[in-house]
Every structure is written in C-alpha cells, then in structure tokens.
C-alpha cells in the first residue's frame, strides 16, 4: 500500500483511440481505484458542472484537446500526457512538428496541467518515445505504448514522487498546425529531400489533413501512404 494508505482515486479523461487504449491498460494498475472515465467533452462539461467527487486524487487527461478551467486545476491534481521532451515542443501538433524537424527519438512527459500557459506545468516523469512509423496509426501506437509504461511507473511511485518545475526558457513552443501547413507548392519541391517528404507524409496521414503538392493552377496531389528506404538502410 502507498503512503496515502489506500488506492489512488483517479478519473480518466480521453476520447481518442490511442488514449482509450492507454486507459484500458492503466486502469488495471493495482494502486488505482478508477472512479470515472470521461470519453467526450460534453460528459466532461456535465461532470464539471455537477462538481467532481471530493475524494478524487488525480484527474488524468490523455490526448485531451480542450483547456481545463482554473476551477478544476486549482482544486484537483490534474495531470496530462504530452508527446515531447518538455520543455521542447510545447503547444500544438507536437508529433508533427518533431517529425517534420527530423526528430526520431523523443519522450512522453507526464505534467501537471497549468491554467497559465499551455504545456508549461511541472514535470513528474518522462519516458522514451520512438517517432518511427510510416503513418500516424503506427506513431500513435508508439505513443500509447510509451504512455502505458510512463503511467505504470508513475502509479508505482505516487505519492512518493515530486514534480520538477519546467525550464521554459530552454524549451520551444509551436503553434497547432492548420490544413494549409500540409501544403507545399510544386515549384518548391526541389527544396525538399525525399526524407523531408516522407516525414511530412507519414505524420500527416489520416485523420490529419494529408500532405499535398499544389500546382500553379490550384490542383492538389495528396500523398496518403508512403514508405522510405534509406540507401544506408540505417536511417
């Protein structure tokens, strides 16, 4: 039994497939007493309106897209998972920004949700994340696997674990990508290596706005599925 002297009361919030797969696994942890799983924003709002149970120890957000209001973050320990080596790649579309920038090995970070700044809360724990994979489905599988490992280790240790402040000044922040960011112009195609194109396509497969090449007449060629074989075979 941990220092609390009882199981940790946890509410899980997640709606994406990879997040639900994480919840399905982590919920079985022997130190956890799951008191709720919130699978969409409407249910979250209803729960928030009605008030969370006072016995809640942690509200855990996995792949959650909406800002959690101050009333919740100040009254409960709200934790979230971010797929980057924080304080690097805070903000939106972290997987896409890292992959397009050529990063192959990253981290998943468990952090306290901060109402002040996005992804700037205290860091509890990190674990390795591989950014390899020919498509988003494979990459999210990596995120899911690493998140399960991270949360299992966290619940093994909690509450005998202390978070650390983020050194935001040493990190980076990126805006959430838009559909237009998935475009390159045909006349600029020479500026991209094949590996650049591969990285763009693989992190923008469904359900994200697919990578496309637009010509001067406004016609769009979408690349939906690719595979890259390095000449050295070690990239």
């Amino acid at each position: 039994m941990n220092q609390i002297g009882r199981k940790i009361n946890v509410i899980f919030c997640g709606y994406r497939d990879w997040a639900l797969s994480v919840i399905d696994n982590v919920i079985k942890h022997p130190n956890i007493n799951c008191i709720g799983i919130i699978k969409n924003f409407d249910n979250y709002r209803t729960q928030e309106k009605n008030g969370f149970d006072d016995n809640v120890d942690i509200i855990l957000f996995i792949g959650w897209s909406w800002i959690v209001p101050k009333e919740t973050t100040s009254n409960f320990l709200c934790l979230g998972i971010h797929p980057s080596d924080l304080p690097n790649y805070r903000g939106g579309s972290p997987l896409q920004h890292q992959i397009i920038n050529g990063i192959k090995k990253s981290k998943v970070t468990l952090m306290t949700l901060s109402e002040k700044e996005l992804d700037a809360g205290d860091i509890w724990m990190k674990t390795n994340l591989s950014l390899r994979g020919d498509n988003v489905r494979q990459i999210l599988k990596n995120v899911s696997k690493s998140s399960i490992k991270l949360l299992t280790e966290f619940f093994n240790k909690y509450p005998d674990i202390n978070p650390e402040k983020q050194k935001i000044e040493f990190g980076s922040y990126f805006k959430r990508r838009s559909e237009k960011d998935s475009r390159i112009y045909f006349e600029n195609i020479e500026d991209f290596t094949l590996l650049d194109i591969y990285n763009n396509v693989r992190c923008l497969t469904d359900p994200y706005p697919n990578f496309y090449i637009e010509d001067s007449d406004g016609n769009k060629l979408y690349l939906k599925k690719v595979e890259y074989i390095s000449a050295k075979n070690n990239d």
Partner: protein
Amino acid sequence: MNVIFLSYRDWALRVVSSVSKHAKISTFLVCKTHEELVQLDLQKFDLIISIGWSEELGEKVASNISAIGVHCAELDRYSYGTPIQLQIMDGITRTKHRVFSFTYDPNSYRAHTHNRLYSHEVDLDLSGNMADILLQMEKTSVVLFNRFLDDFPKIKWKEWPEEKIVRFKRTPKDSLLTKEDLLKMNTNDLYNFFRALEDPYPNGYIEDKFGRLYIQKVRYESNRKKN
C-alpha cells in the same frame, strides 16, 4: 460443359466462385499453374476460362481447346501487357473490358490476343484508385463470362482493328521516377503515375542518392474553377 478455370489470384478465384455456378457448366476444374494445365487431358474439356492469367497458353493448348479471357482495354494498342497501367498513364479514364479468344502466334508481341477477336464488352472506368478499379474488374469479369456462357456456343466474334502503335509491357524498374522526370510532369501526370502503380503492383518510387521514397497511395483534387 466441362470447363477449366485458369486462376490463382484472390480476385480471380472469387470470379471462379461466381461464374462456376452458371447453368451451362456441369463440371469444372480450377488450374493454378501452367504445369498443372499442360498435364491435363484437354479432350475431356470444352472450354478454358482464363482469369487474370499472366502466362501464354502456348501452341499446344491454344490449338486443342477453345480458350477465352477478359482484357481491360480498347484493343489493339494495349494488348502487350500491363494494360491498366499504360492506359492510366496515357490519361485514359474510360475504356472497355472485353472477352477475347486465345490463340498462339510465336511471331506476335501481343499478350494472348494474337487473333484480335472479341465477343462481349462492357465499359470500364479507370478513374480512382487501383483498389476501386480492381474491384470493378472483378464484377465486370463475372458479367462478361456469364454473358459469354449465356450465348455459348453461338458466339458472334468481332475483330478489332490493327494499329501499329505498340505499348510494351511495363517492368518493375519502370516504377522508378527520377527527380528530373518528376519535375517535367504536372500534378495530374504524377497522380496517374502513382495510382497506376498502387498495390498489388510494384509501387511507383522516387530515388535520390540518400534513399527511395515509395508512393503507395495518392488522391487528386482538381481545381475545377481554373481547369
């Protein structure tokens, strides 16, 4: 009728499963390799129906039994192999799917169709991705073979005109597109190139000194306002 089906691909076996139920077929045998075929006593059979068969039947088989297949082109131009790929890359979006009769001519470059005779045909839409096209061909193959069997043995053969343009069968190395080639093409040409080479065919790829990028699935959105 006693029928031999030449068929080994999954989609072709699904066609066999459907066509073999035709009322005029009393017995049938599915042959998956050329070696199996040449060992059969062809006198015991009335017809060979070939579905997605790549090999030539050869003189011995073709001269001893009637054999039919389907070909997805408005022949004569695309009768030399890889007809779907060549038509798509030539910008053709609507073609024919035809029943033809097999003959053998060692001096002809044509694949299977040396005598230029066809009996039944339906339209075939070559727009869309390869999976859509192959699914459509599976369905139209069933229709064509059933129509042929409905009319058998009173088949009216028609001859398609001969032309001198030859489009030879593509090989896997033709799936390479250099960056220089790519820059000479427009987005529609690129779309046609890559969609024609989607699975199960050798995928189109671009190569530079660092590696190879295989483009396995594409989609095209035309700017209709401008085009």
